[in-house]
């Protein structure tokens, strides 16, 4: 296995000692098939045990290891060293407060994910005991891509709208709302409209599109938000004209 030396510049912040973050450089002997997470793990195991960061699965499933790699929000388990220059800067995800080193505070987005009511809302009686909500493949295809989100929050780190004003509900939470709005089993679209069509909802998005470009799971939150703008406008006029809402 070919070994390559990587100069890993890592942002450090210890809330008990530091007033502001600073950068520490480690020289890491990497295998060519390593990802950035492997290099960070090497630092933790061999060079500096004080380094704090989140990770779990190492296979793009858990969504914990999102960081800024040379200024770009990415999953460190997905970013191969062979695709990067010899000097790599790793920082905690932008637009979030830094708890310590590479760990960010995610409380705000956790509340936002909850706020959009990301669950199936039914207005009628539940199906009989031996019945179930039937969904066709075509109906599933309408939102399946949106179910791929792993809450890595790279989209929030890429979104300048959220960076400038974090009242904005933001890409992942809005995409999650759209996932339920588009689910043929759900009847809660009008319930979510108050949150989604509010000042901090879909209209705060100016379609920079960065969220979709950095999304490691190709969820395309920007598309979901634009579709919600269309749906919201249609729903608004339907309500104005007294037409009952339904699934489109």
């Amino acid at each position, binding site marked *: 296995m070919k070994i390559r030396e990587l100069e890993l510049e890592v942002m450090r912040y210890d809330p008990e000692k530091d007033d502001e973050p600073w950068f520490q450089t480690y020289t890491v002997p990497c295998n060519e098939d390593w990802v950035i997470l492997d290099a960070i793990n090497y630092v933790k195991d061999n060079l500096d045990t004080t380094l704090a960061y989140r990770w779990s699965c190492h296979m793009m499933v858990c969504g914990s290891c999102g960081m800024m790699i040379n200024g*770009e929000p990415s999953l460190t388990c997905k970013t191969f060293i062979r695709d990067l220059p010899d000097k790599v800067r790793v920082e905690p995800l932008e637009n979030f407060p*830094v708890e310590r080193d590479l760990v960010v505070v995610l409380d705000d987005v956790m509340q936002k994910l909850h706020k959009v009511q990301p669950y199936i809302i039914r207005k009628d009686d539940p199906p009989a005991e031996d019945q179930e909500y039937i969904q066709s493949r075509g109906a599933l295809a309408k939102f399946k891509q949106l179910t791929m989100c792993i809450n890595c929050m790279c989209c929030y780190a890429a979104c300048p709208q959220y960076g400038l004003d974090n009242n904005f509900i933001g890409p992942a939470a809005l995409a999650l709302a759209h996932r339920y709005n588009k689910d043929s089993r759900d009847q809660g679209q009008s319930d979510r409209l108050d949150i989604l069509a509010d000042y901090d909802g879909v209209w705060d998005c100016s379609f920079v599109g960065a969220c979709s470009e950095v999304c490691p799971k190709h969820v395309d939150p920007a598309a979901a938000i634009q579709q919600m703008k269309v749906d919201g406008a249609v729903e608004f006029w339907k309500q104005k004209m007294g037409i009952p809402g339904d699934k489109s």
Partner: protein
Amino acid sequence: MSRKPYVRTMSTTTWYMRNGRYKVYVLRELTSFLVAFYCFLTIFALAALASDSPDRWNAFLASQQGTGMVIFHALALLYFLFFQTMPWFKLAPKAMPVQLGEKKLPDSFIIIGHYVAWVILSAFIFWLAGVI
């Protein structure tokens, strides 16, 4: 142990310098100045037309035919083309996906549809203006 999260703020004046993606976005959004300019120009033209004074209308037409204005209009057209029309047509399938059964209509269909509509509308306007 007490928590003391460090907040990194985003500059409200220079945030778009952070990466190329933001710069392209701002170039797209800057077309709004040109949109505003052409709105005012249309209002001027309508006011000249509504004034019932052929002199005023002719003066307006003359003001748009100078070399400087022609160059400006040509540059504005190019700017709109590269930073408004093309980006928005490219993004159109995101806002208006078309699903047929289980499959999505390929994005290229929607994008090409927009260009075709653009050519037809442009041809109509040229015909209206007596150019073709």
